[in-house]
Every structure is written in structure tokens, then in C-alpha cells.
């Protein structure tokens, strides 16, 4: 299938873009910063109940729209461009793990509510340095002990999926947000549009989910790569447009600053990096729907490229705006912090390259 957007995808992109402009422009993020809220509940309700965004990658039989990964990528690109704060990424990753496991009861109970936006769920994973969890007991008496940090929307989730080490190996457990011994502490997030928490479990009751945990977690990692790459592609394009726009109007030494090669060439490189990353995202999105055997590699390619490209672009964005680019009032720093954070969440470039090398059989 072709890389370019179908008419339907184009229409979805436009409707999400309009939604962001009308209901959640960057000023909304500033309100959240001031209020300390993790996200705007009204915006989340509209994203889910009206636009169905949390159900795009959930099959219809589980209450979703079944639109697929490409549609999800298109929506995330527009949301990323607007730095929209929401628990969407947390929810779709949790949903993906549930879908890949074999607990039909859990799927039927939870997925329709996640897809509809009524239930906030999250997958409690972080890097090796972020902690780990062990399981003890068996049957109805399994408890989990350990720490995972940072966890996407860990403090807002009503349901957590927690991978832990049992005697048999890695198992994914379902933990209720109100469970005994569970503490969620909201962290200071460098990126104002992400809510992250430390999740601590102390003999917390948990329900094991049957199925291939390794495969489910790998699928979630691949989806996370596509999702973060998509958000970053959208945000990077927003930075490119904003910075090129400024370079066209800001005059110094008698010329718009874009006339000078030091500025012009840096923007040209940003355009080039974005085009390459965008092509990789489109391919990964297509592979997710039409060529699942190569989806993992394609998503890794997109993530590897955009993690670095976007993180560099946001620095260039501040730089090319000069002094004002470093002020609180200007939007550049909002993207800068998003770039820093997107690069390291759920596996940074080194981890992704190691994983890609494994997949390629190097």
C-alpha cells in the first residue's frame, strides 16, 4: 500500500488538527502548567467520546473503532504537533498488552471502557534503571513488590498492567488503582505535556493475565515506538514551521535572518531530517496494518531517527529564535522539553539501536 495518506486519513488529520486548534491550542498547556492538572478532562472526553481516538487501534469486537495503526499514527502526529496533554499514549499501550494476552474476561471488561475514554489504564514499564517488580504467591494470593518509575499517567490510572518476575518468568499482572500497598507519586515532569509517576508496590494484590507476556510487551514496545515517533514527527514539523516563519519576518543586518546561510542551512537540515523521519513513520504505520512481520523493524527505524532528529530540532528552534526563544513566554521551550522527554521515554536511542540490531540479526 502507498505511503501517502489516503483521503480518509487526510480527513482524520484535518479533523484532529481542527480539534487541537479549537479545543486544545498551546495556551491550554499553559493553563495546565498553572493549575497543576495532569490533563484537561473535558478535552479528554471530547478526544475519546467524540473523536474516538482511544479506540482507533482497538478492534470493534472490544468496543473500539478498529481503524488500525495508520489512523492512530495520523491522529498522534496532529496531537503531538499541538503538545496536547492526555493519557492517550498510556491507554493505547495498556490496551495493546491486553489485546495480545489471552485473558478474555479482562479484555471484555476493560477494553471497551479504555476505548471509550472512561477508564484510564497504563502499562507500568520503565528502563532497567527505573526499577523492577517481583511476584510472590500463587493463584488468588499473588502479590507484587517493587518500584517502577517513570510510568505514563501512573497517578491517574484506575488500572495498571504491571510486568513482574514470577518463578515461571515474566508475567503481566492486572493491578487495581485502589489496591492495598500501591502508592503512586506524581513526578516532576520535564515535559509539561506528560504526567508521570513513580509506582511502588508493597505486597500489592494482583491478578496474573494468561498469555505470552514477552510477546505482548514486545508488541507494546513496537506500538510505543510508532506512537512516540508519530508525535515527534508532528511536533518537529510544528517547530520547523514556527522557526522558518520567524526567519522570514525577523530582520537583522538589513535582511530577514533566513537570508543568512547560518540560519538558512540549519533550517534546511531540519527540513531534511523531518522529511526522512516522516517517510519512516508513514512506512511503519503502513507496516503495522499491512505487513506485521516487519512492523517491529519499521517502528524501530522511525523511532531511532525521530528520537534524535526531534531532540536536535528543538535545540535549533530555541537557537534560531535568539533570545526570545529561551523565554518562558515563547513556545519554544515547551517543544524543547517535549523533545528531551520523547527521546528517553520507553527506551532511548541506544536501547532502540540495540533492539534493532537484534531484530536485524547483526
Amino acid at each position, binding site marked *: 500500500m502507498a505511503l501517502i495518506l489516503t483521503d480518509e486519513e487526510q480527513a482524520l488529520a484535518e479533523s484532529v488538527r481542527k480539534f487541537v486548534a479549537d479545543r486544545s491550542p498551546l495556551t491550554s498547556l499553559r493553563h495546565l502548567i498553572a493549575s497543576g492538572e495532569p490533563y484537561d478532562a473535558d478535552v479528554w472526553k471530547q478526544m475519546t467520546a467524540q473523536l474516538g481516538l482511544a479506540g482507533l487501534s482497538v478492534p470493534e469486537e472490544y468496543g473500539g473503532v478498529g481503524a488500525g495503526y495508520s489512523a492512530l499514527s495520523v491522529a498522534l502526529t496532529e496531537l503531538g504537533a499541538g503538545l496536547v496533554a492526555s493519557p492517550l499514549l498510556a491507554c493505547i499501550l495498556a490496551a495493546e498488552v491486553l489485546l495480545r494476552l489471552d485473558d478474555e474476561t479482562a479484555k471484555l471488561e476493560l477494553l471497551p471502557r479504555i476505548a471509550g475514554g472512561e477508564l484510564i489504564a497504563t502499562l507500568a514499564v520503565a528502563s532497567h534503571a527505573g526499577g523492577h517488580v517481583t511476584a510472590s504467591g500463587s493463584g488468588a494470593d499473588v502479590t507484587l513488590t517493587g518500584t517502577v518509575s517513570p510510568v505514563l499517567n501512573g497517578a491517574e490510572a484506575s488500572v495498571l498492567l504491571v510486568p513482574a518476575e514470577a518463578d515461571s518468568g515474566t508475567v503481566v499482572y492486572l493491578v487495581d488503582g485502589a489496591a492495598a500497598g500501591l502508592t503512586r507519586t506524581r513526578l516532576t515532569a520535564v515535559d509539561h505535556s506528560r504526567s508521570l509517576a513513580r509506582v511502588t508496590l508493597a505486597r500489592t494484590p494482583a491478578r496474573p493475565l494468561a498469555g505470552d507476556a514477552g510477546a505482548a510487551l514486545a508488541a507494546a514496545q513496537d506500538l510505543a515506538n510508532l506512537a512516540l515517533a508519530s508525535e515527534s514527527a508532528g511536533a518537529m514539523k510544528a517547530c*520547523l514551521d514556527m522557526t522558518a516563519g520567524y526567519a522570514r519576518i525577523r530582520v537583522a543586518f538589513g535582511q530577514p535572518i533566513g537570508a543568512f546561510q547560518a540560519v538558512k542551512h540549519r533550517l534546511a537540515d531540519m527540513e531534511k531530517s523531518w522529511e526522512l523521519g516522516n517517510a*519512516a513513520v508513514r512506512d511503519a504505520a503502513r507496516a503495522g496494518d499491512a505487513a506485521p512481520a516487519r512492523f517491529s523493524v519499521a517502528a524501530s527505524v522511525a523511532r531511532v531517527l525521530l528520537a534524535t532528529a526531534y531532540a536536535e530540532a528543538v535545540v535549533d528552534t530555541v537557537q534560531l529564535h535568539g533570545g526570545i526563544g529561551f523565554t518562558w513566554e515563547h513556545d519554544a521551550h515547551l517543544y524543547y522539553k517535549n523533545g528531551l522527554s520523547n527521546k528517553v521515554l520507553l527506551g532511548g536511542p541506544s536501547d532502540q539501536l540495540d533492539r534493532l540490531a537484534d531484530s536485524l540479526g547483526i
Partner: protein
Amino acid sequence: MSDDFRTRARAWLAANAPRRSSGDDDGAGSPTTIADQKAFQAKLYDAGFAGLTWPKEYGGQGLTNAEQIAWSQESRDFDLPNGAFFIGISMPGNTILEIGSEAQKKRYLPRMLRGEEIWCQLFSEPGAGSGVASLQTSAVRDGDEWVINGQKVWTSGAQFSDYGAILARTDPTKPKHNGISMFIVDMHAPGVTVRPLKVATGHSPFNEVFFDNVRVPADALIGEENKGWDAAVVMLRHERIAIGTMGGSRTNPLGYDTLRDLAAGLGRTSDAGVRRSLAELYARGRAAQLFAVLLREEAQAGRMPGARGSVAKLAGSELGRFAGNVAAEVLGDQLAGFDTDELLAVTTAIVATPGSAIAGGTSEIQRNIIGERVLGLAKDPGVDRSTPFNQLRVGTQRQN
């Protein structure tokens, strides 16, 4: 229809095209002779695979970008011995197709596609490369003919070319962009002298070409008199798109497949850093391929790549630089001294990488084009755009 085409293409290539045996192509020209290349191109033409997107009345197949994409994908594993025609078809060919006269299209395009005539591009001069608009080769009208005098440089394939598309100054009293014309020149005409130029790799992929009172007929003009800069812009646009979307062969000596196999053979894949570099090379190479496909798909949908061809060209040369660094990491000190053909091929390719950031428009020029024509940024401050050419300084100046 594209699936039938793809099936046909695949079968024909399998039966007629040699698979690539070892990487050696850094612009030195394929080891096959010109006669072999002409024979292959003729076969390609007869089988209906030449000029896929050109109109049928000029020898093409009248197909779409979908078929062009399919052909590029199917031919990746093959070493098509027709590199001698790449420049002619993609540059003067596409330019004549776009702005040439009906007579020129009918006379020259079919023979290009059939492999009967080989073309070169005569733009750069010793004093005018990135600033090609400052060219000094002159064309003076004499009755029904123009008389051309001057020197061109970096001319790929001039040594076996039949025709060339040349830029010459027809009015030195006008500002530099306004007094240039483009002509078709017979490379075997009296007064044309071709001398090879040797590069860092020891090969001679291009030439100097001297014009000493070379005569061309009035109808050799491509486009209008003194509108040659517009024609040049058309040709350069095609050049960037062609180079940028050319794609790498799987046996490219600096490609992921080759370097991964080389690393494995040298026992380097146990090194975590080497593994990461190879994985990153895979990712960067893949993205460049995908971008080329995206540009073709957009063209198919009616959105022409235009100046974004420069993005592709820049991406390609930056990828080459990155790949060269990865190759050096893989080879370690084997790069410094070696005695196998395999390592010769890789190190030659490493030595050649700076060339791709200069030839076909330097990376600095590509960035200017991207900044100005894709991002709409202001042009560089210029001091010579409105001065009559005969009052300008050009090229390398002596210091007194």
C-alpha cells in the same frame, strides 16, 4: 496494470540483466564497454522498459510514476549496464521534453532511449561551479550559426558522448542570469577537445571539454535566446530529483548489507558500538529509500517534488558521509593498509564520499535551495545580480 507491469519487469530482468557481482562503481563507469551498454539499452528499449514515463510519440512508454517506482524496486538487485545513458535521459532528455521544440523532441529523444546517442551536460567551468551563472563560455551569432568558445569542466561521460547540452553566454552586457542560452552541441564537431580529469580515487569519471570556434546551427537553441538560465533551472531540478531518487543498490560497497557482512567476516559484530552503528546505518538508509518512494508517490498524485529533490540529494550525500564513518569503524586499521579486492572496493568508496557532497550541486547549494524554495526564506544577500556581466569578477582571483 502496475502489477502486470511489475511481473513483466521482474521476469525480463531475471532473464536479461546481470546481477551485481562486486561493488566497484564510484563513478569510474561500469566495467562493460560502451558498445555493450548501447546493446543493452537497445534491448531494454525493444522490451518496452525505456522512457517509462515519456510520451509514446517520442519513443517512451507513456506510463506513470507507479510503473517507474515498480521498475526502480525490481531493478535494485541488478547491475544494469546502461549507466552511460543516465545523465542524458534524466537531464537534457527531460529538459528537451519539457521546453524543447517539437523537432528537437522527435530528433533526439527516441535515439536517447534506444541507446543510439549518449549525452553529457556542459554547465560548470573552472571559474563557475556553484556560481554557474557566472559562466564565461561564449556563443556569438554568425549568420545561421552560433560560434562557441570556452571551457567546461567536471563533464561526466564526455569521452563517449555524442551530444551535449551546453550553457553559453550570448549577451555579456546583461546581468549574469539574463544573457545565457542553452544549446545542443555535437561532441564530434570540429573544435571540441575532451581531456579526462583524475580524482582522489585514481579514476577519471569526468573531463575538461574545450570549445575552439565550435559551430552549431540556429535550431540548436533549447528554449529561447538569453533564457538559458530558466532552461538550466529546469535541468538542475531534474538532476537533483534523479540523483536523489536513484536509490542504492543492495551491493553498494557502503550500503548496510555490504557493511554488515563485512563486519561479520571481520569478527566486528561482537562490538556493541559497531552493532549500534550498523543498526543506525540501516535506519538511515531505509529512510532515504522511503523518502524517494514518497516523492514518486506524491508526483503520481499530482504533487511534483520540485525543490524537494534537493532534500533527497542532500540526504543521499549525508548518508554517504555517515556510511563512510560506519565503514571506517567496522574496518578499523584495516582501512589504513589492506590487500584484498573486497577492502579495496570499500576503501575506494570511502575515499569517494566527499565527491557526492560536491558533484550534482554542492550540499551548500542544496541547503540554499531547500531554504529558499521549500521553506520560503529570503535569498542570500547578493551584490552581482543586477550588474552587467562584463563588469563582474569571476572565479579565482590573483592576490597582489
